[in-house]
Each structure stands twice: as structure tokens, then as C-alpha cells.
């Protein structure tokens, strides 16, 4: 097995993504990141492309950090597993992960912060190469349920918020002009004291987004935008990428309504899963939990060189 840079424009890459990829492996998504993103192919002994992954590199004060690309939930590790028997499948996954882990170590980054897709549950190869492996979480809703069943999963509080918004004539509208989306996303990040990568956000809204891979809904009250939700999707899953409320024009309930409308929109589009895309902030987690999805762990990998370990132990004791 071999890991080498892969040309994402080549047919073999698009065939791989069609077979087992998600929107986060799509050429359009990866092109947004320009030079900071490295995409690699996993090749079998016959030099056939059987898998791929990507990561984002930043240099901060001369320190090389390899991390999950901004706005991506994970490093897009995908592969085709040819084995039939359970133990052979497990062995194959272990082999792939070992190759990826060894390859990452050969990049000699000072610090690694990476997330794996939720469908990759085996991280032992990373553990054995001394990565710290810990779970993060997202919520996923099964859209195969009927609208009534989806509503039944929700907490009373969330249901009442939605009812209140409807009673107050909050209207939901799908938009293709993302000015309000960008503005509210900026306000939300600021409120949460989180750094927003505006270059990538602009690329998502201006280069990536089109009607075949995303939808944006806004809630309006008296013609003013009160909240928004922006989702991207692939053939099976809608990912809630951006959301928030307008602090100048708040309405208790419009955030819940616009998010629930996004869930129903995804369901009507024939998708089978709504992924809330990470819920590690307590207040965000509570908001998502109340929609009644399944708490789904995904694994994160972290590692730091000896020089950086001690300060990181102080800043992020959970990870180092």
C-alpha cells in the first residue's frame, strides 16, 4: 500500500469519490482551499487508487501544524475495502490506518489536530503510533422517519419554540443571495469568540455553493431576517454548516424554526441523514440535542512534539 499526492481532476479520483466519498471529498469542495490543502491518494500494490484523505497545513510562528481543513468536519478519509470476511475487513482497515498514520508522522509537523469521519471507528493504528485518540460528537437525525416521528423526537421546549415562531408569523424563505448568511455567520463567530476564516467562508459561499450542493434558509419577521441556516449536502446527507441569529433582530423561536425547516427541506430532497456537524460547545450541543438526533461519536487525533507538549497540556488538558 502506498500514499502519494493525487490529482483530484483525474477520473480515478472522481470514480473513487462516487463510490465511497462525501461532499467533503468533492473536487469543488477541495478546490476552495487552494494551496493550504494537501490531498493524498491511497494506492494498492497494483497502483490502483483505493482511497484518499486530505489535511490542512498552517505555519504559525514557524510551527508547522497539520489539521482538519476549516469548515470540514474531518480529513475525508475514504477507502474501498475489498475484503469480505469480518476479520479480513478489520485487518484491511487497520492496514489503511497504519499507512495514513505513518505517512502523517513522516510530514514532521510540530502539532497534529485531526478528525476522522464518524464511519471510521478503528483508530488503534494511530494509538499505537502514539497519537492521542479521543471522541468528539455530532448529532445525526435519521430522515427516513416521517415528519410526525421527527417532530416526536424533539423536546417540548424546542417544539414550543417552533410553534411560537409560527404563531408570530415568522416566515421561512430559501435564499440564493448569501449576504445575510455571511453577515450572521460573522456575528455568531464573534459572539462565541471564535476565529472565522473569512477567505474560506467566501469561497464556500461564492465558489462552492450552487443549488445542487447546498441550500440556505432565512427566517424573517416583519420582513427582517432574524435567523439563518446554511447546509451543504451530497447524495445521502445534509450537513448543517452555518447558522445563527441576528442579534439586532432577535426572535425566540426563529432559530429553531429555521433549523427544523432545514431538516424538513433535506428530507423532502430525498436525503436520509441530517448531520448537525459537531456539538462540542455546551450551548450548541444543548440546542442540537433537543432535535432528538443520535449522539454520534467521531474520533479525533492529536499529537505534539515534546517542545509543545507542556504548554498544550496547560491549554488543552483534555487532549495532551
Amino acid at each position, binding site marked *: 500500500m502506498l500514499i502519494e499526492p493525487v490529482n483530484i481532476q483525474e477520473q480515478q479520483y472522481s470514480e473513487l469519490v462516487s463510490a465511497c466519498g462525501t461532499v467533503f471529498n468533492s473536487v469543488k469542495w477541495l478546490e476552495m482551499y487552494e494551496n493550504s490543502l494537501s490531498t493524498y491518494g491511497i494506492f494498492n500494490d497494483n497502483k490502483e487508487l483505493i482511497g484518499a484523505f486530505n489535511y490542512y497545513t498552517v505555519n504559525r510562528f514557524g510551527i508547522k501544524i497539520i489539521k482538519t481543513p476549516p469548515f470540514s468536519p474531518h480529513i475525508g478519509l475514504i477507502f474501498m475495502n475489498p475484503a469480505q470476511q469480518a476479520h479480513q475487513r478489520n485487518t484491511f482497515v487497520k492496514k489503511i490506518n497504519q499507512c495514513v498514520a505513518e505517512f502523517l508522522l513522516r510530514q514532521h509537523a510540530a502539532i497534529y489536530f485531526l478528525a476522522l469521519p464518524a464511519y471510521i471507528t478503528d483508530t488503534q493504528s494511530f494509538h499505537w503510533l502514539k497519537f492521542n485518540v479521543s471522541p468528539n460528537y455530532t448529532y445525526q437525525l435519521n430522515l427516513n422517519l416521517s415528519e410526525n416521528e421527527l417532530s416526536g423526537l424533539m*423536546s417540548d421546549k424546542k417544539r414550543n419554540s417552533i410553534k411560537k415562531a409560527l404563531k408570530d408569523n415568522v416566515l421561512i424563505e430559501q435564499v440564493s443571495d448569501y449576504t445575510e448568511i455571511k453577515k450572521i455567520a460573522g456575528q455568531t463567530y464573534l459572539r462565541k469568540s471564535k476565529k472565522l476564516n473569512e477567505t474560506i467562508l467566501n469561497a464556500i459561499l461564492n465558489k462552492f455553493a450552487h443549488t445542487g450542493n447546498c441550500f440556505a434558509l432565512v427566517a424573517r419577521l416583519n420582513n427582517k431576517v432574524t435567523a439563518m441556516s446554511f447546509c451543504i449536502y451530497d447524495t445521502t446527507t445534509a450537513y448543517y454548516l452555518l447558522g445563527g441569529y441576528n442579534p439586532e433582530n432577535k426572535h425566540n423561536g426563529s432559530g429553531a424554526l429555521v433549523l427544523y425547516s432545514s431538516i424538513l427541506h433535506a428530507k423532502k430532497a430525498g436525503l436520509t441523514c441530517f448531520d448537525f456537524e459537531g456539538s462540542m460547545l455546551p450551548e450548541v450541543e444543548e440546542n442540537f440535542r433537543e432535535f432528538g438526533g443520535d449522539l454520534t461519536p467521531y474520533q479525533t487525533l492529536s499529537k505534539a512534539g515534546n517542545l509543545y507538549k507542556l504548554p498544550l497540556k496547560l491549554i488543552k488538558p483534555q487532549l495532551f
Partner: protein
Amino acid sequence: MLVKEINTELLNSFTAKETVPVFSSFNWVKLFSEKLLLLGIFEEEDKLIGYCYFFSAKKNNLSYLINTPYTPHCGLHYLNPSKNKSKKTSFDKKVMTHLAEYIEAHKFHFVDFSIPSTYVDTQAFYWKKFSVNTRYTYHLDLSPTEEELYANISSEKRKSLKRAEKDQLSTVLCTDYDEIKKLVTKTFDRKQKKINEALLDKILTKFAEPQNCFAFITKDGTKPIACAFCVYDLYCCYYLFGGYDPQNRHHGAGVSSMWNCILYAKRKGIKTFDFEGSMLPEVEKYFREFGGALIPYYTIQKASLPVKIGLGLIKRKAF
């Protein structure tokens, strides 16, 4: 909700009304009289809804909280009364939050325990700055037929079984746990690992009964050369320990003991065989070849910075 220390009598009265997993059973917990910290989870002041337990003591003036020996996790078990999905998840979170708060408030110098694989939500611990690490075990679904289970194991393992048969090794259900103890002790000696002999004796003599344990032993003629010992409840059979005689090695003997345990558990109507942890590469490979599914479970750790640095030097992977 409230978490507070309880005694084993209260646990006994609670488990008498409930079907609980073997590692949460009263008979198992009462093996650990010394250093046992048994925590009750109360919905109201006096309504016990669940519990978990740990080994807690002081060593070199450092207080610690860890899993009890021979136990894969803290035995967390509680009743979640919620029907609605969102409420159910919120209830789980509330339990974990109260446990995290209790452990944090008691300021142990060193915390390292696992939670059962059925509980996936560890966010409350993460938010209290505990480190949560992913570990694994293999679970083998026992619903397929014996032929299907056999077809699912690796060709290497099948060869080992055939070799054992060809060499006329006999694998039998064993009720003489002295023989088990001898082989297990030899294995610990070989690995230069310390064995808690008093507790091993308690498991084999006080806990073990046909309704919660069984063991298979493989013999070459009359000589015992390998064994596997399992505990079980209604749903799951756990491989607890095993061993072989290094002076009479046969590469099919251990496999044969384990395979017979799997078949015996299936015949008892148990749904799952749990290999009980597989984090050492050579052990993991051995278990993987039986064709089970890799199942993550989580360990919760916290240590003060100096302890962490010290432990980091000794046990780098864990800290």
C-alpha cells in the same frame, strides 16, 4: 439528581429487583471490599436509580480512582426513565454531569477508569477537562450458526483448531478452578505482570458458579496446557482471563479453549461474546481473527500536571 457514596447492602436491594450486567452485579461488586468506592446515583434524595464503582485509595500520598482489578469498566448502570429521544439523551448527560462533578469535587490526584461500551456520551467529562480516550474490545455476535461462526474466523485460526484436533488435544469444560489458576499464574509470570492472587482466588472460589462462569481447559493427554475462563450474564459472555503452559506449548491449544468458550456461550443462548479489551497489538490480532466487530469504549483520565508529566514519562501512550 445526586451522586453519593452508598454501601453494598443498598446495592444488593437495588440489584435484587433488576436484571443487571455481570460486572454491575452485587456478587461481583462485593468481591472488592477493600478500597471500594461505590457511588449511587439518586434521582431524588432517596430514590436510587443507578450506581458505579471504583478502586480508590492513596499511594505515596497521591489519591487515585481507577477501575477495580479484573473488571473492564466502572460497572456504570442506571435506569433512564425517559421515553422521548431528546429527553433520554438529556438524562444520560445529566447522569454523566453529576458523576463528573462528584469526581472533580473530590480532587483525586489521578483518575483513570473506563465506562461500559453501551455508554457513548462522555461530553460532561470533556467539559470538566477530563481527558477521554478511545479504547477497543471485540464483540462477536453469536446469532449466526456454528458453521457460520467457524467460516468467519481466519484461516490461520482454523488451521490451529485443526492442528489441535489432529494432535488429539482434548478441550473440556472445567470445574476444577485450581487448574485454571495454575495456568493463569504461569501466564502472568511469563509476562512478568503482577497478579492479584487474593482477588483471583475470590473470583474462582467465591464468585464463580455455573450460572455466572465457565471455563474450558485444553489437555495434551492428561496434561492441562491451555485454558480460558469466562463470566457471563443473560446477554453477554466476557472472556476474563486465560493462559497456557509455556513448557508444553501447542499453537492450537489456546485457540481451542477460546473457541469452545464461544460455542458454549452460543449454546447457552447468549447473544454476544466480548473478548474484553484488545489494546496490545499481539492480543488484538489474536482476538481479531475470531471475526468479531471492533467496539470502542471510553476511558476517562485526569491527573494533576506534575503527576501527568511523571506518568507521561512512564506511560507515554496513556498520558
